[in-house]
């Protein structure tokens, strides 16, 4: 335990306790908080991992890079598939989705215990939304579980590559472009924030003076300082933006638009070509 930790480890204030008055899962295991949702999450992850190993064993390629849980074949549509023809994928995806969502709810419990905001579980839910859109919502919209990606290291890279070419040129997908913009901008802002804090911590000056100086630095350098609260606000919302446009990027491909080159072949009616 950290030296200040015991003051914060208090029983109660969990979602289960809120609903039923008592919570038998309200305890820690070593450093980790357990809770009902921790038990659900670990259980689902354990089950999924067992099926994952069974499926990999069926294909027999145990190499970490190539081991592959193939998405169901097209013939099965949205129906359950035999275990060796995509059924394993369906079970593993279901287990993983349950594990992810339970993990987010476990974060809610921890936030409630620490009496802090729910920003982390909200952000994690958006990350889960990318998984759910890719593996559940879009396959259902397209009418086939085969639209999900293979669970594999290089296998999912092959899926990304093929999906890009299937819709002609993914670089011309405007939501893909916004997503790339979001990823690179978060990386740049992250470098600026990290550089600022690592640049000014533990000097011989009073840290409050140092932080005020940091505002002056950014005003000198680029004309505006967003402030020490503001930079985290910006980073949070840039990450939200990136995840939302990434969701749209893949959700609209194949469902609404099937050719991102053709997508741009329009002109305003009053402009002659």
């Amino acid at each position, binding site marked *: 335990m950290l030296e200040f930790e015991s003051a914060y480890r208090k029983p109660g204030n969990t979602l289960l306790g809120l609903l039923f008055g008592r919570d038998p899962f309200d305890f820690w295991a070593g450093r980790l908080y357990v809770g009902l949702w921790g038990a659900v999450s670990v259980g689902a992850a354990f089950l999924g991992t067992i099926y994952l190993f069974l499926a990999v064993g069926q294909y027999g390629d145990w190499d970490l890079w190539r081991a592959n849980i193939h998405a169901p074949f097209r013939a099965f549509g949205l129906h359950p598939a035999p275990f060796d023809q995509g059924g394993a994928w369906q079970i593993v995806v279901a287990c993983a989705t349950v594990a992810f969502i339970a993990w987010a709810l476990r974060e809610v419990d921890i936030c409630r215990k620490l009496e802090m905001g729910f920003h982390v579980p909200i952000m994690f839910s958006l990350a889960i939304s990318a998984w759910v859109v890719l593996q559940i919502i879009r396959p259902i919209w397209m009418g086939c579980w085969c639209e999900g990606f293979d669970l594999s290291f290089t296998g999912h890279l092959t899926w990304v590559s093929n999906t890009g070419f299937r819709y002609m040129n993914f670089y011309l997908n405007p939501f893909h472009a916004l997503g790339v913009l979001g990823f690179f901008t978060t990386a740049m802002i992250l470098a600026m924030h990290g550089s600022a804090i690592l640049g000014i911590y533990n000097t011989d000056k009073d840290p409050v003076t140092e932080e005020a100086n940091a505002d002056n630095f950014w005003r000198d350098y680029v004309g505006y300082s967003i402030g*020490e609260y503001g930079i985290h606000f910006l980073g949070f919302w840039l990450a939200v933006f990136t995840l939302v446009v990434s969701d749209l990027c893949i959700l609209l491909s194949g469902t609404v638009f099937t050719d991102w080159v053709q997508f741009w072949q329009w002109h305003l009616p009053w402009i002659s070509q």
Partner: protein
Amino acid sequence: MATVIAPLPPVQIPADSELDHSDPAGIRLGFPFRIELLGRLGLDTQFGTVWLGTWGLLSVMLGGMAALVYVWAGLTLTGGDMWTFIREFANVQLLPPNGLGAAPSLAEGGFWQIEMLLLAFSTICWAGRCYERLVRYSWRPYLLFAWLSAMLLTATIFVFRPLLMGTWSEAPALGWLGDLDWAQNFSVLWGNLYYNPWHMLAIFFLFGSTMLWGMHGATILATAAEGSHHEAAEIKDMHSGSHKAMLFWRWTMAWNANPKTIHDWIWWYSVGVVLASAIGIISTGTVTTDWYVWGVDHGIVEQYGPMSRDKINLLPNAKPLDLTVVGLPAPPNTTAGANAAQGAAK
């Protein structure tokens, strides 16, 4: 609460008079004005002033000239009609010339070379501006090294790799769609970049950077009511906001950073993007001409079907630098080099 991090030796703060007035362009431009609406979101409301400085002046002038040359080039390429230029703005591309010499004409790479020179020096001058502001404020030079890392990736794409490949035409064209087309074609020409391990690592850092902003930004916003956003102060002396931020992750994933080390993580993740990218770019077409074949040979990807090792010569007119004089093997993108490499592989 005791100090968490062992303090570094204190840095000396130069007096205002020592540096400001040695710079003939050392003035602050404009007057500060406020946009109060931003304060409603918790953002700083003050805009300006901005430091001019010799390096900043040079950087902005060179960048401005690059913008003017772009308009000149775009107008030239679209037949001098401003309306056509505006309408076709996304399609205008300044293409790099063939070979490593000077371009035969403005339209055949000359515009690209002028732009590259202006932008290169503008970027270098901005590094000078970064350096002199860091010195003025006595910051440790993390920001300069982050900027230099970004410059390294740009220079790798636009200068170092074209030099190794023997033609400027290996660099991206300048234009809205120019870089998108280059990225698409680059992957296709060199056998699918997804199987380039450095590209994998770069994407890991890139997505990781967004993830870390999600985690760090969310953690600080969630505990900002207790002052965790005063990070320099919290590194010296932690309070309940940082306690909660640390305990949240410790209870969630059995491990946590602290107010100082989270910034080590985020700095290295963001810099890792450009460093890994630079290695991935410089090795494409030089170390291997086909990342899919490379991946199959190294056992990281299934062989999905028939696979050709007969690489067509993509750059018949390129004259790569003769690396044998410095003891390096000939690059395999020439016909002779490719045959030699194949012979060695067999």
